[in-house]
């Protein structure tokens, strides 16, 4: 089944028109970024509303280095490394924060980075870079979209294999444990701080490499290419089919990308006002996010699976848990029933401290 899907998606670019090929490539790049975010939010329970910043850092690293004469391949290798390094440095203070504090901090970090880029002429300022060279070694450059499509396909496969193995490994279980309770995880010997930092850096690396390919493919990067809306978009992709699941992130990225393409075509139909595509995409993102989190907080697939199990005479398939183990941690993230005396960020409220 999986092999079939892989083969089909590998061969698909051969039949796509050039416009659809662009959608295919961006879909893959968003999927890679979304898988990283899913790992961070679903598995490790750390909310990030600024994940697009690492996509931007990857893109700018690749663009700046290659425009200064460095080999594009080397630049592409350095893009995820720098993104991960930035995440590791910023993560030390930021990951002390929890819940909504972390959400605002990551968002603030993205806005700060975008503002700094806009104000730094070396980084292209507000106008950004144009004419970023295509990816290639020496004279042989990747000029066709088809090449980028297969490169993206390969990257997606590698990232999925790595992530699926990570989830099943010992660190993966440790991350799930710390998402449920950091104190409990710490007490059984999980190095909580180091693991949180590592998964933050890994998710940044995924975003960074995707950003690198993005800039070589598009050939252009400006602060406006990586707005806060992109971060929200990534959150929607991750939440829709089930937070913390690699396949969920992949299908989320695919579903949203295709939906947006359809809406874009509807919005640009003859006679539509100029702002129609933007309007439709905002409405879709917003409503999807609201409806999913309100009614199917575990995501569409697990939610439907649970409904199916609840049908008359049905029983819950014990395998469903094993296929998608991280979903349990999502439930703990979105539906945690904390004692009422703790604050949203998990620290004891003043009343509680006073009573002790």
């Amino acid at each position, binding site marked *: 089944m999986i092999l079939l899907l892989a083969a089909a998606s590998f061969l698909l670019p051969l039949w796509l028109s050039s416009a659809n090929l662009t959608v295919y490539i961006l879909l893959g790049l968003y999927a890679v970024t979304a898988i990283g975010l899913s790992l961070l939010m679903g598995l490790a329970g750390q909310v990030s509303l600024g994940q697009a910043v690492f996509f931007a850092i990857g893109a700018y690293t690749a663009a700046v280095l290659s425009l200064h004469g460095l080999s594009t391949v080397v630049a592409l290798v350095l893009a995820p490394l720098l993104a991960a390094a930035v995440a590791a440095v910023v993560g030390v203070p930021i990951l002390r924060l929890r819940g*909504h504090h972390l959400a605002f901090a990551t968002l603030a970090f993205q806005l700060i980075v975008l*503002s700094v880029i806009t104000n730094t002429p070396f980084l292209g300022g507000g106008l950004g870079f144009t004419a970023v060279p295509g990816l290639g070694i020496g004279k042989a450059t990747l000029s066709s979209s088809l090449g980028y499509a297969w490169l993206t396909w390969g990257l997606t496969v590698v990232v999925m294999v790595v992530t699926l193995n990570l989830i099943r490994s010992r660190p993966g279980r440790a991350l799930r444990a710390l998402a449920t309770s950091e104190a409990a995880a710490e007490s059984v010997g999980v190095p909580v701080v180091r693991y949180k930092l590592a998964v933050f850096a890994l998710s940044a690396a995924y975003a960074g490499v995707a950003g690198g390919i993005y800039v070589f493919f598009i050939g252009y990067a400006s602060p406006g290419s990586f707005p806060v809306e992109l971060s929200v978009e990534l959150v929607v992709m991750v939440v829709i089919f089930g937070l913390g699941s690699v396949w969920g992130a992949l299908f989320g990225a695919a579903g949203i990308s295709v939906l947006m393409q359809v809406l874009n075509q509807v919005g640009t139909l003859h006679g539509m006002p100029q*702002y129609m595509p933007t309007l439709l995409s905002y409405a879709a993102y917003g409503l999807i996010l609201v409806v999913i989190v309100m009614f199917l907080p575990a995501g569409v697939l697990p939610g439907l699976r649970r409904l199916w199990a609840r049908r008359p005479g049905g029983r819950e398939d014990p395998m469903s848990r094993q296929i998608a183990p991280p979903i349990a941690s999502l439930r703990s*993230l979105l539906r945690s029933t904390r004692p009422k005396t703790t604050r949203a960020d998990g620290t004891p409220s003043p009343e509680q401290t006073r009573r002790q």
Partner: protein
Amino acid sequence: MSALVEYLISGVAIGCGFALVGSGFVAIFRVTEVINFAQGTFAVVAGFVAYSGLTSAGAPQGVAEALGVLAAGALGLAFGGAAIGRKHTSPLASLVITLGLAVTAYAGEIAIWGDQPISFSGLQGDFVLAGAHLLRQYLLVIGVALLVLLGLGVFFTRTYLGKGMTACASNRFAAEVVGISVRRMGLLSFALGGLLGGFAGVLLIPIQPLSFNSDIDLAISGFAAAIFGGLRSFEMALVGGLVLGVAESLVGGYVQASYETVVALGGMLLLMLWQARRRVELA
């Protein structure tokens, strides 16, 4: 000297706007423990409704603004219903819902008012203070904001409803026991948050034009103001708003206007980290 006075007064005026947005965060968070990401949306919608009232409905100044504030309050109630209406929605899930609502609101705002920045003139004219020419609107913003916050203080200490909300804020369980509906108080707190955000919107829109996505900047600044008091104190939200507004204005005036946001955001980050550290030390 006159430049300094100008930066200070305009900073205080903007800061009062931030404080109003921040008070909205506080009002909602205290009762529901939810961070309402759509707090900036209330301000934007109130400003837009007031604009429509002035231009297309021909309502007199003052009435149009009041309509805007009321619309924001109603919107707050509706958002609250979505964010905390269903049982067992965790505060973090509610945050994501309000984020979704804010994005959905973009669509509505674009559909009705288009995607260009909107502004209208508020209080006309200017006055001279210590050699600096200042907009009268600044005084209006400062005056109204202080009155609203004062009214908020009276509401929470002198009325049954306000005391009920404070009771929910300090101990939900005990509040339920004595017959206060925590859920209804939560919804009311969202309406209150909407009103407060609405005041900020109608007061600020004559000074700085708002567009549909101005809500992120407003929400971030308001959150930064609210975080001064750990999201629980209205007085500290006012202090936070003023500090933030003046700091932004001074940086914008003396250093470079484009660094305003960096200062605000950086300050907010440092403050949050400092608070988190202190919490760890206390524990």
